[in-house]
């Protein structure tokens, strides 16, 4: 089991969810409106007067074999509109109940 944490611009949220749904990741948790900024470049998304855009995040725990497929699709999504910004991070799950 691996955890995928997706942090993206609001604009990508629906598409990112669709990717998860279509690729067998049934379980996830999401936050639709949160602030943040990328480590390399791109505009910050704070939801304030200066930077009015916002981020959304999804945390999904999936079977190991699904990870690559999902990440590829997410990467394609990111490349379709690089200005919006989308990052995904994966790590191991130690234990679940």
């Amino acid at each position, binding site marked *: 089991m691996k955890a995928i944490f997706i942090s993206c611009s609001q*604009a990508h*949220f629906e598409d990112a969810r669709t990717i998860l749904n279509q690729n067998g990741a049934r379980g996830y948790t999401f936050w639709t409106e949160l602030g943040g900024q990328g480590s390399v470049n791109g505009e910050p998304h704070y939801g304030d*007067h*200066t930077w*009015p855009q*916002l981020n959304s995040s999804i945390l999904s725990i999936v079977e190991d074999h699904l990870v690559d497929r999902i990440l590829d699709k997410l990467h394609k999504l990111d490349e*379709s*509109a*690089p200005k*919006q910004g989308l990052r995904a991070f994966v790590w191991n799950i130690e234990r679940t109940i």
Partner: protein
Amino acid sequence: MSLYQSSVNKPVTTILIFVAIAILGLFSLIKLPVNLIPDIDTNTIMVMTSYAGASAEDIENNVTKPLESILNGVSDLKHITSQSKENISIVTLEFNYGEDIDILTNDVRDKLDMLTTLPDECGNPIIFKFGADDIPIIMLSATANESMTGLYKILDDGVSSPLARIKGVGAVSIMGAPEREIQIYCDPYKLEAYNLSIEQIAQIVAQENRNLPAGNIDIGSNTYSMRVEQEFNDASEMLDIVVGHKDGAAVYLRDVATVDDRLQERSQESFTNKVQGAMIVIQKQSGANSVEIANKIHEKLPSLQKNLPSDVKLNVIVDTSENIVNTINALKETIIITFILVMFVVFVFLGRWRATFIIILSIPIALLGSFIYLFASGNTLNIISLSSLSIAIGMVVDDAIVVLENITTHIEKGSRPKQAAVFATSEVSISVIASTLTMLAVFLPLTLITGMAGVLFRQLGWIVSIIMIISTTAALSLVPMLCAYMLKLNPKQTKIHKILFTPIDKGLNSLSNGYGKAVDWAARHRGTTVLIAAVFFALTLVLTLPHLKTEYFPTQDNARLSVTIELPVGTRQDITRDLALELADRISSSVPEIRCLNIREGQADSENTIASMQSNGTHIISMNISLISVTKRKRGLIEIGEVVRDILREYSQIKKFNVIEGGQSGGVGGQNAVQVDIYGYSFEKTDAVAADLAARLRNVPSCTQVNISRDEYAPEYQVEFDREKLALNGLNVTTAAQYLRNRINGSIASYYREDGEEYDILVRYDKKYRESIEDIENITIYNSLGQGIKVRDLGIVKETLTPPTITRKDRERYLTVTGIVAKGYAMSDLVEDAEKELNQMDIPLGITWEFGGTYEDQKDSFRDLVILMTLVLILVFIVMAAQFESLISPFVIMFSVPFGFSGVFIGLVSTGSPLGIMGMIGLLMLLGIVVKNGIVLIDYTILCRERGMGIIRSVTEAGRSRLRPVLMTTLTTVLGMFPLAFGTGEGAEMWRSMGLTMIFGLSLSTLVTLILVPVVYSIFSGVGVRKERKKEIKKIKRAALMAANN
């Protein structure tokens, strides 16, 4: 869930809600009545009191003065004026506009009840309310040849009664058609020979002309009623009446008199296009709609015409509804042109038809929404409500543009339209609401103005406010919803599209870059820029202000002229008639634009209220001239008025004339006149001042005609009986006067009945026996002993002068001198000239003067509007300060306001248009609109600064990026005003100055704002930064000092 989120999620509900608004709006539009201006309640109450036999001065002292002092206590009173003339006192109370006249009428009635000091013989004071409703809405002419003798009855039965039955029609009166009368003309010498008098003959005629029931009789088994039916069936039957006996032989009426079945001796005559006929004046009931009634009347006229004799032709002389309908249609056209212009601008800037459609859709929805308000609040479609719509069109798209632009940006960055619609709207919602609030800060206070301007502009305030609220709601719900479903990520572009829009896009980009450079230069040369702006502002004020003219309302070209001509008092009717016809000839040949020319002259029947209310007499000619519509002729109304005046000036026998353009003086759209009220007790002194002023004004080029309100002393004959002689002969003044009246005016003996109508039978001396002073002196008066005494033995007949009516205003005697503003001049020119002349004049002690009438209204309204402007400025500042959470930013933005004024002054002076109420309203609206551009610029500049840019880079960047939206919103508003400012339809002069004000004010202030506001911003920010820096340096120094000390 937010408004935009739910509307994107529920497209069906969203669309249907707006469809419902549109349908309700359409329904209201169909039901809305049409009128020229919003309904204005009358603001005057008249109190009429009769006191038979009292002279003007007695009336003034015993009736008018007590009435004035008690009525002065009524609340909200603006002016109290009065007329005291023989037998009657008329006190007129003028209130501020917009007060409830019914409550005031009750107040007046209560005050009158408290009055106990009026003379005993005085009649009870009667209260009249006279308002715009009492002005005739349609005047018809009925020309006739052979039917002239019976015209009154023909019209009464065939036209006036059927018209009066139409719902909403008030009084219908016939003028200029003399009524039938049976005249018994007696020969005084024969009467004397047979020892008879007029009174005896009248009595005998009355006794012979009788129908009487005699009771019932039983014959056999039946009961019959018994009647005497001896009324005359033919006027000639009267000739055989036995009126007396002389030497045993019967004296018949034919022996002493002739019987003439004919028309009234004296009556008003009316000529339409030089053919004699009658005039039918139609008034509406209070509160009824003129246009509706006029339509019904027009519908009915053909069927009425069919039932009239073939030589009687009905024609419309004046139809007030025609002008209303044409004006409203011209405005509707204006709105359509504005709509197309705005659509064009939006399309050019956006270059995409889907986006254009989304934005343009909010216009009809918002406009239709405002019709719901108009219908629900019982208002009408009028020039104020429709020009408000025209003004609003350019502004309703602003919010939609802002929202759409942000959504498009996000789509271009790669968002899906549906998601972009939600969060892009959310990003700009606060600033959209804030800019709407600034507009509301301007327009809602308009609903608070009092007075005439308040009555007019309350609708403007409400309509624009409602439209703004609807358009903002649409921008936050309908626009994102439509964007979500209609906009595409990468729309296909056709070849034509590329050919058309690539150069436009390039042009706009290079404009933005050029502008960015200009801002950059200006921000680096702040001192020079501010200095240039200040000098420019001062120069415009110095150069334009002395030439700026003001007025109340422009004279509306409603294709009507009314002319009153007075010949010397006592001119015989046939002389007046000849002159009237000659004048009609002259005027129609010099003014080919005349559609219909109607003349009236002669003494009106006192029973005819409408006719006797207007000035009439054998020496007075009244003309009603209707011209063809303004769109079909080259010369304007004022120019034609001058032509008529020039013709009238050529006739030396004309003592006074008054040409009124538009048919009414003053008020909204009426003739522009300056009224000087001259107060003083002495007739002689005030008359002299008035005559001097009138003579001076006649030589002033800005004045084309001068009228003095007070008439001169009018000549008349008086019979002065010697009371001693009367007493010696067993007579008194009343009996003697009654005898005199019966012989000259005649005594109504009885009524001749035919076909259900009654006609007077009048007994008097034949005309040839009452044409000279000698004839009057030879009249025989009989005493109770039957002795005949000649008038010349009882007194003398002498010529005297009757004093004119005593007029008072605010409890002091006054008279007015009215100057009509000449073509090419404004009211303020004449006011200035009149003031100069008055200051040069040697006015005797105790005589004072002041400007009254329209100028006073103008001053009041201007004062109200200036106060309102201050209020609006403060409110706009508050809204902006709240939006920016700062006091500096709104202050910076406010720098665009003075240049709005510069633009307005330059525009008005260069086009030679005076500043009127409409222009002032334009100025007021400008306050809200000019700051909008500033808000957009400063908002983005602050954003850039917060994103870490330097001051100069921020202002340059903000300018470059915000130029397009600023230009777009400004262009939609400015171009939206073009049809208003340059339209030529009927009534266009009314809103021209408003259009000009907005166009010039907004254009100049936008140009200046684009440079000056960034510069002023950088000055203030620079100061802020320097202060911060100083603080930092101090801190560092202090820290260093402390470190050194340690």
